[in-house]
């Protein structure tokens, strides 16, 4: 039992909390918020591992995740604004891909 273990479990917890949010919430905005939380989980994990091993790659990966999150948020919110006109922000109503 090392600090790293605990930190990694916490990062997993962050991820799963976000996952629960994405799965449980029907409002698109809430799902986007949950996605942010999901992304921050791995970010914590990378930084923790990097710090634990004293290497710079952890931070590097964090930056990558950050870039991803930034792009995702921008696009996600744009899509949300776009879809709100049709669905009122409820993702379950946007089911044109139903089989």
């Amino acid at each position, binding site marked *: 039992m090392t600090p790293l273990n605990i930190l990694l479990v916490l990062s997993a917890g962050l991820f799963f909390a976000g*996952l*629960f949010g*994405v*799965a*449980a*919430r*029907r409002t698109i905005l809430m*799902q986007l918020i949950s996605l942010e939380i999901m992304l921050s989980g791995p970010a914590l994990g990378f930084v923790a591992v990097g710090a634990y091993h004293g290497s710079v790659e952890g931070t590097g990966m964090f930056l990558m995740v950050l870039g991803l999150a930034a792009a995702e948020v921008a696009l996600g919110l744009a899509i949300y604004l776009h879809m709100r006109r049709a669905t009122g922000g409820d*993702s*379950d109503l*946007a*089911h*044109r*891909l*139903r*089989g």
Partner: protein
Amino acid sequence: MLAYFLLLVPLPPLGGFLLLALDPYRLERRAVMAVALAAGIAPLVLFLPVALGYFAGSIGDTIAPAFTLNFGQFEVALAMQLDALSAIAALTVTVVASCVMIYAADYMASARVADLRRFFALMNLFLAGMLSVVMAADSIVFFLGWELMGLCSFFLISYNMNSPRAFAAGRKAFVMTRIADAALLAGLLLLFLEATSVRIADLIPAGLAAPEQRAVVIAVLLLVGALGKSAQLPFQTWLPTAMAGPTPVSALLHSATMVAAGAILLIRFAPLIEAHPGVAAATAIAGVATAVFGALCAVAQTDIKRLLAYSSISQIGFMLLAVGMGAPGVAMAHFVVHALFKSLLFMSAGVLSHASGGTTEIRRLRGSAYAAPISFATYVVGAAALAGFPILSAGWWSKEAVLGAAVMAGPFGQFLWLVALGSAALTGVYAYRPVWSALRSPVEPLPAIKENWLAVGPLIFLATASVLGSFLVGPIVRTMGGTVPHAGLGVEVMGALAAIAGLIGSVVVSFSPVWSARIKRARRLRAGMQMDAIYYAFLVRPYRRVVHKLSGRNARKDTSHEAETDRTDGGMGDPVGTATVNLGLWLARVVTAPFVPDRFDLVTMRSTREVRRAGVWARRLQTGRLRTYVMAIAFGLGVLVILGWGMTWG
């Protein structure tokens, strides 16, 4: 120098043929005549000096090579030769051919230009072929000419395109001679294999040196070839029907030259025949039998052309007899004499029948003697030669030589001599019959026809030759290296008596009502002992049945009209081919039968149904909702994590 002169002899007729047959330009009637006559007479002009030189002894035996073939390891030089046989025969052929050509120019004067061209083209081609046969120094040129003659004979017999009978006659002649030609070809090829050379001079010693059995086979094959071409028993049936051709054709091809080529063949290869007594005897027997048979049938004929045809058969029988008796020189002499008088007979008979209104029936020639006196006179000369009128006619001398040769060949020959003597007597009986008929006063007077010099000139020449030919018999036999047989005065008197008996017999037959009635009734004999019917029943009809059975009734219905799509048009009458097709179809069916309700197919079809049902069920999973997918991912992730946990446990 002379050698190449020899090669030139058959070229003018060949050129004439090419010009007339293949030249696309329209030729005038006179031009056709001119080309034909020039090409027909040129060989005589070319060959006469050579032949005279040969007889005078200033030119010896010569071989003129044309070109060389290189078959593998050995070479074959095609060549023409000048020896006693070719000199005599070629001279005879060129002389007779020239006469017939001149005569034909008159005889065919009323034909259409196109027909005229065809006629003269084929006559010229025939002449080239005949000259190659008699002058050939090797078996290739010999057979080339031999077959060309057969081809020309076919086309000339069926010259009258509108007449199915003429075509049938030509076809019959072609097939019959071709049967014999196949035998001849076999014989020549076997000789070639023995000698590994085609030069006739090499073939004969090689044939003599061949193993006994093989040599006999070769000799028999050559004999069969000769029998077929010469219309000897048992091939004789084609010649009488071949008279469907125009008279000049009958005169040149079917009496004087082509038919006698069988005799030329046997004379050429006489050493091979004589080397085997059995074959020689067979030759002699075939000759004598044909001589008697032909004479008997000729007596019963009512048609003058058919009568002459049977007489040709009979006379060539005499030639074969001579060859069989070991006297090819005598046969050669008879060949020459026969060529002269037989072409004369045909041509003058043609004029006579023209004078009596175009019929060839002997009965209706009445009075033609007065309408065409010159032709009648020449006919009488010819008939005398045919009947062997003692001393005055050439025919008597040559026939006496043949009979003498038979007598001198021992007891067997003397038996044959007796039979031949009977035949000679019968010859007289039929030879004069048309004469008596023509002399009778006509029922209504016939208009006198103008005897054109083109027609009469050759007749007079040939008549003269038939008389003066008496002096040729001896020299010919001697040139051929034989001796004129003198069997004693008794034998010669017997021969003369036979001829005179024939003359008396002909008077009896022509003027006695009993005998005329008998001849009228002798249908069997007139139809050549109905050999045709026998051949039809035993060869032609079975063959036709085989053909029909094999090609099937369907083949008869088979049609090529575009509109009709006949189901039978599938070669169904072809049993072997059909069998293969049916076997293939059967195999295909047997192989495919277990799969006809295709079980694999059923299984797959059923499973597709299930798959579709599964799909219907599975599409429910696709809600289109994001959350559902996320939950599915979460579930999967959970399962994976638990799995990974389990794997790293402990």
